[in-house]
C-alpha cells in the first residue's frame, strides 16, 4: 500500500484530457499546428500562433536539457513542505518548447543548466500520472 498523494493534483478538462490520458499510458505528448509548423506548450484548445483550432497531438521524444532550475529549500504547501530540498526546473524539450518539471532520481546538487534529461512518470492516483525528468541514461 502506497502513501496517498498529498501534493496538488491537476484539474483535467476537455482541452487537456488527451495529455493526461497519454501520461497514464507512459507517453509525453505535446501539441503541434500543421498550418503554422509550430509546437506549443502547455496544452490548450487553440494554436497560439494562428489562433486556429487545428492543433494536433504528437509524441515528444521525451528528451531535453535543463534550461534553468532552482533548488527549493522552503515551500509551505502540503506535499512539498516535507520534500525539500527538491529541484524545480524548466526543461527544454528537443522539440523546442520549455516546460516546468522537477528533476528527480538524482542529487539536487548535481543538476546544472544544459544537463541532458529524459521523461519519467509517476502514478499519483489511478486517474492521474505526472511526468517528471531524470538524468538521461
Amino acid at each position, binding site marked *: 500500500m502506497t502513501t496517498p498523494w498529498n501534493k*496538488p493534483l*491537476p484539474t483535467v478538462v476537455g482541452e487537456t484530457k488527451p495529455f493526461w490520458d497519454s501520461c497514464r499510458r507512459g507517453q509525453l505528448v505535446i501539441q503541434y499546428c500543421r498550418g503554422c509548423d509550430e509546437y506549443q506548450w502547455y496544452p490548450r484548445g487553440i494554436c497560439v500562433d494562428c489562433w486556429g483550432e487545428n492543433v494536433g497531438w504528437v509524441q515528444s521524444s521525451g528528451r531535453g536539457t535543463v534550461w534553468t532550475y532552482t533548488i527549493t529549500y522552503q515551500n509551505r*504547501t502540503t506535499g*512539498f513542505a516535507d520534500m525539500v530540498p527538491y529541484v524545480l526546473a524548466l526543461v527544454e524539450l528537443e522539440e*523546442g518548447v520549455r*516546460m*516546468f518539471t*522537477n528533476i528527480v532520481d538524482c542529487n539536487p546538487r548535481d543538476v546544472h543548466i544544459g544537463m541532458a534529461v529524459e521523461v519519467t512518470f509517476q502514478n499519483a492516483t489511478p486517474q492521474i500520472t505526472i511526468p517528471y525528468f531524470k538524468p538521461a541514461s
Partner: protein
Amino acid sequence: MVDLRRAAAIVGIHEHVTRYAPDKSELQIQGESIIKALDDAGLTKDDVDGLFTASSSIRNSGMNLADYLNMYPSYVDNTTVGGGSFEFHLSHALTAIAAGRINCAVITYSSLARSGGVSVGTGGVGRYGHPILDPSPDSFEEIYGLTTVGLYAMIARRHMHLFGTTSEQLAEVSVAMRHHASMNPEALFRDPITVEDVVNSRVISDPLHLMDCCVITDGGGAVVVASPEVARNCKHTPVWILGAGEAIAHQGAGKRDLIYIAAHQSSPRAFEMAGVTHDDIDMAMVYDSFTITVVETLEDLGFCKKGEGGEFVSGGRIQVGGALPINTDGGGLSSNHPGMRGIFLLLEATRQLRHQFDGTARQVSDCKIALAHGTGGALGSRHSGGTVILARD
C-alpha cells in the same frame, strides 16, 4: 498618439506607515489612507470621481471599497496584475483624466500579510489552504511545487549562467536598500548590512538567500491623481505624469526567452511617450521583490545592457549620490512589502520630486524627473510590468 504629457498629476499621497496592524481591517487602512491623501492634496471626498484599487485578499475590492467609504465613483478600475497594478492604475487614470471622463482619481492599496501570517514568497500554491488548480496553466505548473521566490531564483540562476552574475553582485542590491532604509524612520529593518551578511544568510531557493528576498509587512497607502485644472489649486507642487507603458510577459507557448522581462516591452513605450532619455532620469523606483528583480529590471528598462546589471548595481551606483539612486525609502528588501508594493513606488517618487527631504541625506539632489517600474507576478512564469515617468515643473 495624442500628447498626454502633463495631462494629469499626482497631487496627494499618504503612506499608512504601520508595518504591523492586527487591529485594523484592510478596508480601514485604505479608507484612512484616502482621507489623508486627499487632505495632503487639499481636496475633499466630493472632488473624487475615479476609484482605482487592487487587492489579493479583498474580494471585489473596488465595489467593496466604494461601499465601505460610501462613495459613488463614476469611474472604477480594479486592474489586478500583481504588485505592479498601481503603475497600471496611474497609467489608466491619466487616460481617463485626459479624455475628460474624470477630474480626480484615488488609487489605494492595503494588506495585512504580516499580521495574517501569509507566506507570500514561500507559501506556494497552498498558502491560502488546499488548492484546486485551474486547468491551465496551474495544472502544468503547481504540481511541481512552484513558489514565488523559486520562480525568481530560476531566472537568477539563468542570469548567472549566461552573464557570470554573482551572488555578491545581487547582494549589493540588498546592501544599498538597507543603506536607504537606515535613513527612513518607518522602515522595518534599518541596521546596516554587508554583502557577506547577505550571501551568508540561509538559502531559500538557490541561488537566492533570505536577504535576497523582500520583507513581509502590513501596510497601505493612497495616491490622488488630478487634472491640470485641479492640480494647480492643490497644496503641493504637482508631480506630472510624462509617460506610461504597460506590458505582460509570459512563456509564449514555451518558446519565449524569459531572461527578458516585461520592462523590456513597457520601458520604450513610456520613454517614447514622455519624450525624455535615460540620462534625464534623476532617480528610479524599481520594484524589488528580490535582488534579481532589480538587476533584470534595470537592464530591461535600458539603464544598462543585458547582462551588465550585476555590475551596474555594484559599488554604490544605486545609492543616493550614485549614478542612479533607486528605492530611496529602503525598498521592499528593507522597508516594507505587504504583497503588492507598486503603490509605494509612486509615493516615494512623489516625495523625491517634491523635494520633501531637502537638507537630508535621503534627498536626491535637484530631483526633476523620476521613473517608477512595478513588476507583478513572477519573472519565471508570467508577470506584468508598468513603467511611469514623473516630473516636477
